[in-house]
Structures are given as structure tokens and as C-alpha cells.
């Protein structure tokens, strides 16, 4: 159905209250304060208006129906953001491992980075309404569209990480052939090119989500890029701890620790700073995903710090926990945005507050 998720809360709230000047219009309507809580009746039974210290942030809507459309994106887009971030972080780790002589870490991060990118690309295309038209993204390069910018970054990043990973996958008997040697020679420049584009690949998704009218994403534009890149670092560090022996994995452990700490801190700041829209990060599926994200990320980083140097098995388990944390983080952010479109108060209340504090938005 085209209206599958238009909030139909016809009976949940009464819409606008029109009061003719005649006395006796004494129905008490619900008034909602900036925090969304009920502050008591706006109009008393005798019709007199309540005098408050704060100008009333009266919440009205069209029969409680949602104003914005629910985002078209499903969980697949969260899988993509996770896989793309993992790939980008891995490309950075692979380049460092290449330059510092850590062959196992380099090999695992390159191949893992390519596999993550391949999976991410699948989810990205599968989430289109017309997947067979995915190449239409390459018709234009449009600076105002973060999705267009991301597409072109991926168009450069994909072949680079692909070439670097291919060098790791050339079978022994082909290594002496001309193509085999060429791939091995090009592996390092390709890996460095991938690493140069990787921070963009890991962070543009945050701009993509924030440059929307979706309240929970738009208002989070300061923290979201840090959550994205930190989460990529944590995930890539986790992957490095899985694929490389303990003796080579020290940079992976450090990257994971940085990522986890920044991710947890940025998430905390986000939820505190957001006002009424912040509610969505603490309710429904978003809250469940984000709680799991924090739990897995914290467990992963603790395991890594305490046991990561001693046991390969403990390191791999910590790495898996970090990967799970990264995936839940993206699912949580996706659902927070979806939830913030489903109740008109997340549109009306922040805008009314803005009008009350600064007047209506003006271009100049």
C-alpha cells in the first residue's frame, strides 16, 4: 500500500482548537510543552486562558497524521553503511599494514575490505526502487547531492581496493605471468589510493542522512560524521583482530579502541543535545538497536584491551563484538530517523520553538 506507514492516529489527538469568542467554549485541549509532556489544559473550564511563565508551545497537527514521508530506505541501507564503513576502515588498516610490513594484517584487511564493499554494493543496489537502473547514478555528478558525491567516491574507491585485494588473491602459478606481476606491482599504489578515498567513503553517509528533512538525522549533523567514521574504525579494527595474528594486530586493536571510545562519546552527546527529537533515540526499535550497539562495542573494546594481546580467540571474539556493535549502530541511526518522521510533533515542536526563539527562518 502506498500509505503503509502514514501515521493514522485519527483518534489519538484532537486537531486544532477553534474557539469562537462566545464564552462557554471551555473544552480543555491537550497542551504539549517543548519536552512533549503534557503541561496541563490550555483553557480552563471557565474559558479563561492559563497564564504560564513560558509562552505555550502548543502542539497542533492535522488529526495527528504525520507530516513528513517515512524514509523509503529499509534495513538494507543500514547494512550498506556498515559494510561501506568497514571497507573504508579496512583500506586504511591495509595501507598501514602494507607500509609497516604486516603481511597478514595487510592481506586480511585488503580482502576483507573488498568483500565488505561487494556486500555493501549489493545492499545499496537492492534498496533501490528500480535496482536495474542503478547505473543512472553515473549520469550526473551533483555536488548538492551527497548520494551523487558518494557514488563517485565509490566509483574511484571500488577499483582501487579491488586491485589491492586482487594482488592478495592471485594464485601462485599465475604470479610469474605478466598480469600477475602487474597486479602485484600496482597493489601498493592502488591500496594507497583506496586509503586516500576511504575516509570519504566512511563519512559521506552521515552527510547523506543529515541533508534530509528527517528531524533526527538533520539535527544530528554535527555528531553523525564522527559516529560514522569512529564506527568504521571500530569495525575495521575488529576485522583486523579476526584476520591477523595477535603479533601483527596491535594497530587494529588501537584503531578499534579509538573508534569505540569516540563512537560511544559522540552517541552520548547526540542523545543529550537533541531536545525533543532526541526522544526517538531512546524509544522503539532505535533504542533497542542503539543499546545493543553500545553493549557490543563496549564489550568488544574491553575484550580487546584486556585479552586482545594474549589470546587469538579472545581477540577474534572481541572483533566480532565490535562488528556487531557497528552494525547495530547503523540500524539504530536508521530507525531513529524513521521514527522521527512518524510523529508530527518532531516536525512541529522544533520548528515552533525556533519561531518562538528566533522568528521564522529568513534567507537573509
Amino acid at each position, binding site marked *: 500500500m*502506498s500509505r503503509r506507514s502514514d501515521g493514522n492516529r485519527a483518534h489519538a489527538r484532537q486537531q486544532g482548537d477553534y474557539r469562537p469568542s462566545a464564552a462557554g467554549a471551555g473544552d480543555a485541549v491537550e497542551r504539549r510543552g517543548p519536552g512533549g509532556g503534557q503541561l496541563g489544559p490550555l483553557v480552563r473550564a471557565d474559558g479563561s486562558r492559563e497564564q504560564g511563565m513560558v509562552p505555550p508551545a502548543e502542539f497542533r497537527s492535522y488529526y495527528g497524521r504525520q507530516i513528513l514521508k517515512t*524514509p523509503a530506505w529499509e534495513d538494507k541501507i543500514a547494512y550498506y553503511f556498515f559494510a561501506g564503513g568497514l571497507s573504508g576502515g579496512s583500506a*586504511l588498516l591495509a595501507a598501514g599494514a602494507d607500509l609497516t610490513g604486516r603481511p597478514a594484517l595487510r592481506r586480511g584487511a585488503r580482502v576483507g575490505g573488498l568483500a565488505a564493499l561487494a556486500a555493501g554494493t549489493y545492499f545499496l543496489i537492492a534498496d533501490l526502487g528500480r535496482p536495474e537502473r542503478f547505473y543512472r547514478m553515473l*549520469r550526473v555528478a551533483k555536488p548538492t547531492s551527497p548520494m551523487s558525491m558518494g557514488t563517485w567516491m565509490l566509483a574511484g574507491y571500488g577499483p582501487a581496493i579491488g586491485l589491492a585485494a586482487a594482488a592478495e588473491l592471485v594464485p601462485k602459478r599465475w604470479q610469474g605471468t605478466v598480469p600477475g606481476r602487474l597486479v602485484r606491482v600496482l597493489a601498493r599504489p592502488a591500496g594507497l589510493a583506496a586509503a586516500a578515498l576511504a575516509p570519504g567513503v566512511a563519512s559521506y553517509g552521515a552527510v*547523506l542522512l543529515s*541533508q534530509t528533512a528527517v528531524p533526527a538525522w538533520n539535527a544530528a549533523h554535527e555528531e553523525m560524521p564522527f559516529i560514522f567514521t569512529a564506527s568504521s574504525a571500530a569495525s575495521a579494527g575488529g576485522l583486523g583482530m579476526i584476520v591477523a595474528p595477535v603479533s601483527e594486530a596491535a594497530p587494529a586493536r588501537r584503531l578499534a579502541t579509538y573508534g569505540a571510545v569516540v563512537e560511544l562519546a559522540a552517541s552520548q552527546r547526540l542523545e543529550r543535545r537533541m531536545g525533543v527529537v532526541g526522544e526517538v533515540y531512546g524509544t522503539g526499535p532505535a533504542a533497542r538497536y542503539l543499546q545493543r550497539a553500545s553493549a557490543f562495542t563496549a564489550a568488544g573494546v574491553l575484550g580487546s584491551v584486556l585479552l586482545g594481546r594474549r589470546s587469538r580467540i579472545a581477540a577474534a571474539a572481541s572483533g566480532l563484538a565490535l562488528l556487531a556493535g557497528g552494525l547495530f549502530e547503523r540500524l539504530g541511526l536508521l530507525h531513529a530517523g524513521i521514527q522521527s518522521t512518524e510523529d508530527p510533533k518532531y516536525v512541529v515542536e522544533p520548528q515552533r520553538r525556533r519561531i518562538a526563539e528566533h522568528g521564522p527562518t529568513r534567507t537573509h
Partner: protein
Amino acid sequence: MADHHRVYGPETDPAGDSGYGPDHPPRKGFFTDTSICIGCKACEVACKQWNDVPDDGFDLLGMSYDNTGALGASTWRHVAFIEQPAAPQPEPVDLGMPGMRPPGAATGPEGREQFRWLMSSDVCKHCTHAGCLDVCPTGALFRTEFGTVVVQQDICNGCGYCVSGCPYGVIQRREGDGRAWKCTLCYDRLKDGLEPACAHACPTKSIQFGDLDELRERAGARVEQLHEQGVTEARLYGADPDDGVGGNGAFFLLLDEPEVYGFPPDPVVPTRDIRRMWTFAGLAAAALTAVAAAVFGGQG
């Protein structure tokens, strides 16, 4: 990429700044005067018929005479019905014997239940700074020579970005089709010098089509007229070229706050903050690069 193409700020000629020559037609739009809308829904029907918009479901929403609900992929005009009741009368009324007179006639006007209906035909706003158009990664959404915003259905790949780029909740991906759809302001009719189907069908001229400059003047005069008549709650919505989307190509005269009609009270095109957003992303990316380099610096 033309430097003068603005994503935010003053913009008097969106078609010209999108690359149309100086002889492009003047910007077209709608002025929907809801004070004379009678809720007949002729606009909804005419739009469906002309544009061959498919069925959007037969849902009884149980809230008012509005069973359309909202704009969407298959609803390009939507008539809102707002019934604003007052309190039930404080004393019970003796119904007495059935009579010939209308209810309430015995007690006079002051004894009747007080309420009013607001009716309003909503449509795509064809923003000066259109969020849907800015974020579209395929170029399927484009600015026409009339300054309107239209989806090219042979290009759209259903990425869904426009759906979340719109601060009004207008454009939507159609289930089963996969592409994004919305009002075209009857681009085909405009090309042939006709007015859009909804405006043509409107029996009260609540929906007025024309050159945007002229419509804005007409709307300003109408508000003044209503204010003189004592309808002090009349106000324009989307007519101000200085608002968060640079003004709407389709704007409204309302008799209550915008949110009562399902409009956002202070919409802003998400592209406004594009530099700030990329700046934060750049900082985060730089931090990631620095950390990735630093983690290889230590022992082990």
C-alpha cells in the same frame, strides 16, 4: 556547473539559474485560497484523470470527510477537512416533540453548537529551493522552464533520497512501481498553454493558476480584504520569497496555523546546511586519517 546556481538564499529566477535562456516563460504557480474552498475534491479527481494517477486505496480514515489522508506517490492533490468543534453545550437541551424547524432554531444562534470547517487543497509546493531536486543523484528531478519541479520517470531509479529531502512530505516512492512520483504542475498542459487540470476543475477558483508574481500580488490583496472583513486569522503560507525554501511556487491562504492543515510551520530546505555538514564530515574524515596513521606509530 553554474556558479550562480544557488542552493539557498535570495533567488528570483530559478528557471534562469537552472540554465534556461532569458526568453524562458515567467515562473508559473498556484495560489490556493482555502477561504473559498468548498471541499468538493474536483481537483483530486481532475488530477487523477488527467495524469492517469493510479488508485491509492479506498481507506476510510474515520477522522473527517477526508479519506485521502495525505499527498503521496499516487495523490497529487489532497483536500484536507478540518472540523474544529467547540465544547458540547453545558445544559442538556430538551428535544421535545419533533418539529418542522431546524435543530437549534428555538434557542437562537447562540445556542447552536459552534464549529467551523476548514478545507484546503494541498499540492506539491514547487519550491524555489527544492530539497527533492537538490538531493536527486540521477538528475531525474529537474527544474522546468516554468520554474516548476518535475520527475523524469524514464530516468528515476527509485533511490528514495527525494522522499526524505522534501520538508513537506510530498514526494513518495510508489509501491509496486519503485519510482518517485509527485505533482508535475501539469507540465504537459503548460507546454500547450493550458492551465493545470486541478485549477481548471476548481469551481470556486480556490485554486488559481498563473504567473507567480501576479499571484503573489493577488494573494496579498485578498488577505487585506479578508482582514478588513474581520477575518483576522487569514494569512499566507509559502508566499514569502525570503522563507526557508525561498518561497513556494504553490502557496496558500490559510485561516489557521499551518500545522493544523498538516503543513510544517517553518520549513527549511535541508540543502541550506550543506557546507556545514560537509565541514563536519571533513573533520571526521581527517580525524580518521590521522588516527589510522597514528595507530601504526606505536610499539607492537
